[in-house]
Structures are given as C-alpha cells and as structure tokens.
C-alpha cells in the first residue's frame, strides 16, 4: 500500500514538473526543432496548425509531440521526418507527408530504433515511403492512424507499418492503404494486431515471418494485390478477421507457409480467388470460419499434416477444397457444406453419408488452369459424378464423415 501511494505521488510530481512548449508562427517557438531542443523529459511540445519543413527531426528524450488540428510535417520528398531514439515518446495528432524514397535506406515518416513504450496515436500519413518503422523496440502502441500512399509499383513503395525484431507491440484501429505491405512483421513476438483495416496495398495486407505467438483479431484485409501471406511462424492466433475480395492469379485470402500450432477461427473469407492456401503447415486448427463465394475455399498442398478443419461453413464456393496428392493427413470434420447432397434419416443434424470436398474437376483445374473454361459444362458434371461414385483420382480419405446439415450461425 505504501508503495502504491508512493507511485501515485511520483506521478503527480511528474505532471507538476512537466511543461508545455508551444510551436507556431505566433507562438514562442517558431520551429519544432527548437522546441524539442528546449524540452526536457516529460514535456509536451504543442504544435499549432501550419506547415513545417524542418528536414529530419531526432527525438532523444521522453517527450510528447502533440499536434493541434493536424499540423503538417513535410519531408519535401527528401528526408525521414521523425527519428525516435528514446523510450516513452508519444507522437499524437500530426500529419506527416512526403518522405524521401530510398532503395537502400528504409526512409520512413516515423522511424523508431530501440524505443520502448513509444505511442503513435491518431496521426495521418500521406505519400510516405515507409509509414511507421519500428526496430528493436517493445511495448509500443500504434493506434488510430491513417496511412495512405499512391504507389504504382511494388518497388517504389515501402510498408505501412513495419516492425523488425520487436516484442509486445499493439497495433489497433489503423487504416492502411496504397503501401507495399499494409502491416509487415519480421521477428515480432507476443504482439496484438486488432481492428485494423488494411486495403488496396500493392502486395500484402498483412505479411509476417518468424513472428511467434501473436494475435490478429477483428481486422479487415480487403482487395490487396496478393491478399495476406504469413510464413515460418508458430503459435499464430487469427480470429474474427475478414479476408475480402483478393482477386488475381496469385492472390490469396490467406497464404500460410510453414505455419504450425496455430488457431484460425471465426474468420470470414469472402470472394477471394483462393481463400486459404496452405503449404507445409501442421498442427493448426481451423474452426468456425465461413468460406463464401471463393474460387477455391481451401487449397491444401500435400505436405501439410495434422491440421484440423472443423465446424466451418462452406457456401457458394466454386471449389471447396483441392489438393495435389493422394495421401492426406489432415482431419476434416463436422463442417457445413452447401454442396452436400446427402440425407439425415435420424434427424441429428449430421449427414449420414460422408462428404468428399475434393472434386475431380478441381484437381484438373489445379493442374491445368485453362480447363476452367469447361466449368459447369455437361462433360465436367459427368466426370465429377463418375468420380463420386468410383473415386480413382481424388484422395479417398479426404472426407468429412459428419457433415453438418445446417450452417453454423453467428460465428
């Protein structure tokens, strides 16, 4: 108790000591740079509306930059705008535009190196190469920012929110569009990405590698060049996300490569060319997801094993599942398949005959994409029916033994 009291008193003391430094044409400080120089730990630099062209600003002490009505910090297509090399820094309410473009350096609007407890809140980023770049940082919060760029090709643009070797990061409520990858993680652990909207990025809406034990929830990934791709990671939790309208020959709602021990639940995959593409994945669970109006709901390469697909809804997909081998070591159980034509005599809402989600034609198209022109032709219909009766090419043991008669609601 005494200890808590001490902390509270200390905080009050901190507030009492902190001062506010105002920057603006009519204010005491005319430049942000001079205000930052004058500030001491815990101070707030209050930036009034206006356009500030001050090149690169380096923050090396725990202060807050607070923008009033979004003052503009213009990098004039040359420089990195804010470099943060201290902990407990907060950047609030700024509008950061026109960073330089670099092919060797990752020039960003906000670049944090070895920073702890950084908070980047309610800022706007326009035409930046990288938006927010974190390296070797931890316990940072990135919240409520809007990042938008207008690149025409992948190599002309960096990522929206880019984190490298970080831990315990919270990324929440951001909107990211027009970057290379919306959110990019490499060696980032124990972090949470939630309620973000990453759309119309050149490459991936979300892209991570070697980032274990992170949680992704309630995000929307829509119309990104290649959807979402995650690789070489264990312990991923993805839930309540929407993967929408990722169309194209190499576009995926969610591409999983070498992912293990992960939980992918309660997500919606709607109108993707390939909703989920899995390669080298193992021991992961897919439950309560809805796959709707996709070209392929799940493309499962034969090198995946011990994954479980249970209680998902498959609605109006061209192909529910396809695979490239005959040996399948994954479990498919109790899903709802709208293509299921079986019966349920004992009325327990479980179909009495198994459902085979892999059709012959889906395997044909997998091998020969041009064969898609025969979709829904009588020939294909006959081939599929024949294969259902006498399976010869499709994997016999890839089947749902307890198909649900009803779709799962409210998931």
């Amino acid at each position, binding site marked *: 108790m005494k200890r808590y009291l001490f902390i509270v008193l200390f905080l009050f003391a901190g507030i009492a000591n902190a001062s506010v430094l105002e920057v603006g044409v009519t204010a005491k400080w005319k430049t942000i740079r001079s205000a930052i120089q004058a500030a001491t730990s815990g101070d707030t630099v209050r930036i009034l509306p206006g356009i500030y062209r001050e090149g690169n600003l380096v923050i090396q002490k725990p202060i807050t930059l607070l923008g009033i009505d979004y003052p503009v910090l213009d990098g004039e297509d040359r420089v990195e705008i804010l470099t943060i090399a201290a902990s407990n820094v907060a950047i609030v309410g700024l509008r950061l535009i026109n960073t330089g473009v670099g092919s060797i350096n990752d020039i960003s609007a906000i670049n944090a190196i070895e920073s702890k407890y950084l908070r980047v809140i309610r800022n706007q980023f326009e035409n930046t190469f990288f938006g927010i770049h974190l390296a070797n940082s931890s316990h940072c919060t990135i919240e409520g920012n809007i990042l938008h760029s207008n690149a025409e090709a992948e190599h002309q643009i960096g990522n929206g929110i880019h984190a490298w070797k970080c831990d315990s990061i919270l990324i929440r409520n951001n909107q990211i569009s027009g970057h290379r990858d919306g959110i990019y993680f490499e060696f980032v652990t124990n972090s949470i990405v939630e309620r973000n909207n990453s759309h119309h990025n050149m490459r991936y809406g979300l892209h991570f590698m070697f980032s274990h034990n992170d949680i992704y929830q309630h995000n929307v990934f829509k119309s990104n060049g290649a959807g979402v791709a995650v690789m070489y990671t264990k312990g991923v939790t993805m839930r309540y996300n929407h993967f929408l309208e990722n169309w194209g020959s190499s576009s995926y709602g969610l591409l999983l490569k070498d992912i293990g021990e992960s939980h992918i639940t309660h997500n919606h995959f709607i109108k993707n060319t390939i909703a989920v593409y899995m390669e080298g994945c193992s021991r992961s669970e897919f439950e309560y997801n809805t796959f709707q109006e996709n070209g392929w709901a799940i493309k499962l390469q034969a090198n995946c094993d011990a994954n479980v697909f249970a209680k998902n809804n498959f609605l109006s997909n061209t192909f529910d599942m396809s695979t490239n081998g005959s040996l399948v070591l994954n479990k498919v159980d109790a899903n709802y398949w709208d293509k299921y034509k079986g019966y349920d005599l004992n009325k327990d809402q479980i179909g009495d005959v198994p459902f085979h989600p892999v059709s012959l034609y889906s395997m044909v*198209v997998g091998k020969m*994409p*041009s064969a898609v*022109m025969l979709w829904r*032709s009588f020939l294909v219909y006959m081939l599929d029916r024949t294969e259902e009766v006498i399976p010869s090419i499709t994997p016999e043991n890839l089947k749902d033994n307890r198909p649900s008669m009803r779709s799962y609601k409210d998931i």
Partner: protein
Amino acid sequence: MIKIGKYIIYDILRNRFVIAYTFFLLLVTLSMFSLESDPGKSTISILNIALLVVPLVSIVFTTIHFYNSYDFMEMLLAQPVQRKTIYFAEYFSVAIALSVAFLIGVAVPLCIFNFNESSVYLILVGLMLTFIFVALALMASVATRDKARATGVALLFWFYFAIIYDGIVLYVIYSFSDYPLEKATLSMVSLNPIDLARIVILLKLDVSAMMGYTGAFYQDFFGSGGGILYSIFVMTLWAFLPLMIAMRRFCTKDI
C-alpha cells in the same frame, strides 16, 4: 414470308410436343426456385438445363417438323411464291414458336423470381441457342430425304456440341498444358455456341469460378462491352451461316 409464317406458327404452338416442352421448362424452372432458397443457385441450375435441353429440343423438333411439313411445302411451292420465302417461313416459324415456349417456360418465371442482369443474359442466350440449333437442324434436314438419317445427323450435332467438343477441348488443354492457352481456348470457345453461351453467363453469374489467371483473362474479355458484342456477333454467325448454307441447298434441291 409472314403470310405463311403466321399460319405455321399458329400450327406449331398447338403442337403437343411444343406444349409438352413448354410445360417441362416451366416445371423445371419453378421447381428449381421452390427447392433452392438461393435464387442465384437456381439460375445456375436452370442454366445447366437450358444449355442441354434447348439445343436438343430445337434440333429434334425442327427435323421432325421439316419432314412432316414436306407435303405441305410441296403444295406451297406449287403456288407463286419463291422457295426462299417458304424456307425462311419454315425457319422463323419453328424458331419463334420454340422461343415462345422458352419465354413462357423459363423467361417469365425467371423475371418474376430473380430478375437481374444474369437472368437477362440467360434468356438472351437461350433464345440465341434456339435460333442456332434450329438452323443447324435445317442444315441436316435439307441434306437428305431420309428422315431417319437427318434425325441422326441432327442428334449427332447436338451430341458433338454438348459433350464431345468439350472432351476434345479438355484433351487439347491436357496435351498442351505447358503452353499459354488463353487465346487458343478463347477461339475454341467461339467454335462451340453452347460453350460460348455458358461462359458468357457464368461470368455474369458466378465470377468466383473464373478467377484464376485464365479466368481473369476471360473476365477482361467477356466482361467488357466489346466481349459481349463479340459473343453476340459470333452466336449470330452460328445461326446465320448454317441458315444460309441450308437455304442454298433448299433452293436447288428436288422436293
């Protein structure tokens, strides 16, 4: 032509076979909508029926009707009319009568239960297939005096376009799967009116099916106004060419 045609149409519309065809289509369409809660899926099922049944009925009925009308045509040809006139009267009355059956059996329920762009295309395509296969059947009919042989040839046309052709396409795709085949498959599609009809509608109906690389190519082509015009043009050609070939034959043949 219209003077003769209106009487023939009147005659065909009271034909038992055509009435049965109308009711069959109506029954199928209505049951698709009552069994399936999603009208989009019903439309797909109706499409499957339409792509098979419309060409089959068109081709069989036209051949039978042509031979049953042989003596009547002979009587008409003894009148002061051109052969062309009688030929076109026969073609258009059969095609229009079957189209009326299709409109009543498919178009009306479709417009009531699921009126949208894809339904309009389905109706348009059904009508075009009717006109195409009536023309193909006439081409088989004028070639020989033997009713059985003409019916056989006409059925072979149907079998070829509905099934065999797709088998050939699949074989070609399989044999040349290492090469880019988009343009080649596009031209193969143009060589079969049933395939063309199917793809035009599927791109309107369930886009997801066509979203691979090849799909995107088709989407770009058929999704554009130019692609639609191209399809209509090719299908018109598919009706026009057999019609003209058969007409030349009809005008110089012994009745």
